[in-house]
């Protein structure tokens, strides 16, 4: 039972990661692929934050009388990663817009067909 409780967070992360992975490789719509990538990314965020959690610890803001804090290092890494993530997502979406303008579609299969003829 303790194994299940102790590792449950990681299993949630794995499930999310696989859902994102499936979206990326199985869908042909480019916007959906980006959403899949984002879900994959969030699963990694949750993994880091779960690692940084300390049972009974407080949020890492120093206070008198508190001894145990959550690990601040993963928080730093992830909060910058979130902002970087949205910046790169914006870049990906901008690429999609340009692809749409060049090929008239955001569906991978249709783009392949057109790419062969032009």
């Amino acid at each position: 039972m303790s194994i299940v409780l102790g590792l449950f967070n990681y299993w949630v992360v794995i499930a999310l990661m696989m859902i994102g992975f499936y979206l990326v490789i199985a869908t042909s719509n480019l916007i959906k692929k980006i959403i899949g990538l984002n879900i994959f990314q969030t699963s990694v965020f949750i993994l880091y934050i779960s690692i940084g959690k300390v049972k009974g610890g407080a949020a890492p803001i120093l206070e008198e009388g508190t001894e145990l804090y959550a690990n601040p290092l993963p928080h730093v890494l992830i909060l910058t990663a979130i902002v970087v993530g949205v910046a790169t997502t914006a870049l990906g979406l901008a690429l999609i817009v340009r692809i749409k303008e060049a090929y008239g579609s955001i569906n991978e299969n249709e783009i392949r067909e057109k790419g062969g003829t032009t």
Partner: protein
Amino acid sequence: MLVATALASIFIRDLFAVIMVFGIYSLVCAGFFLNLNAPDVALTEAAIGAGIAPILMLGTLALTRHSWDPEPHAKKSKHNPLLPLIVVTITGAALVYASFDMPHYGDVTAPANNHVAPRYLQDSATEIDIPNVVTSVLASYRGFDTLGEVFVIFTAGIGVLALLGFLSDGSGRKYWQFADTASLRRHTVLHVIAKILIPLILLYAFYVQFHGDYSPGGGFQAGVIFATAFILYTMVSGLQAVYKIIRPEFIYLMMVIGVMLYAGTGLVAMFMGGNYLDYNALDHHDPVHGQHLGILLVELGVGICVAAVMMSVFFNFAGRGIHVPEDNKEGGQ
């Protein structure tokens, strides 16, 4: 619940609904982070995942949708869904197997919690004297990392500008001259509410920026919240009205100033006899005060850069929406 919303994004076909579900997913994520004692991360995720990211996705959707087939999904996908499913299941099973070696959730003795983290928690009170350890690690101990991240954001902003901005638009039209698309202008209720909200959002952004040393917050979150206020104004009043307040050139300039403020603080520390980004050198008599000054400047640089990049990205998406239909008409004839 997270898994449920993520699964929903596989099965829903309508892209609009998928994006909305993704926003909900991010909000649930933010709650989850708060539950894991990471208020800084939760604040960021709520502002970005539930705020900016869906807006950008909707923008893309608006730009790419108008000449779609009425039922683009009616065509059977060439992909066989079975093969990816098998790949995903095998990878997932391998990862679950690996997870048995992981330290249990909330374990104080886990390796991740035992190397540098205790040092940050114990010594930052005397070395930096800022209650929010996340801020001191972000801006001081790991200043180089953060500088790198800011440059990545800056580069992404430049990339979007190069792909969608007016610089690549060879036709020579100035894109802020077009009539604005916001049909929302006529809605009085929206106008009034936005007018009440925008100053509050801006005030909150400044609070998060300058109170980041003592409570959850800092440059990254404040920049995003600041940008949100302008995005709200754009949606209600249109792009033209915003460009009356800030010229796009000014936003591009602010992107550079933000990055230079960060990198420049490091250089000043170097000139004053320390290492690069070593804020102790900023004040020789009182190193702790030097740390405060350094962190304040660096966070300000981050905030300015993030806010400017987010605004320029959104404005580029919005500006594109105004004249893309014409391009397509010309192309179609």
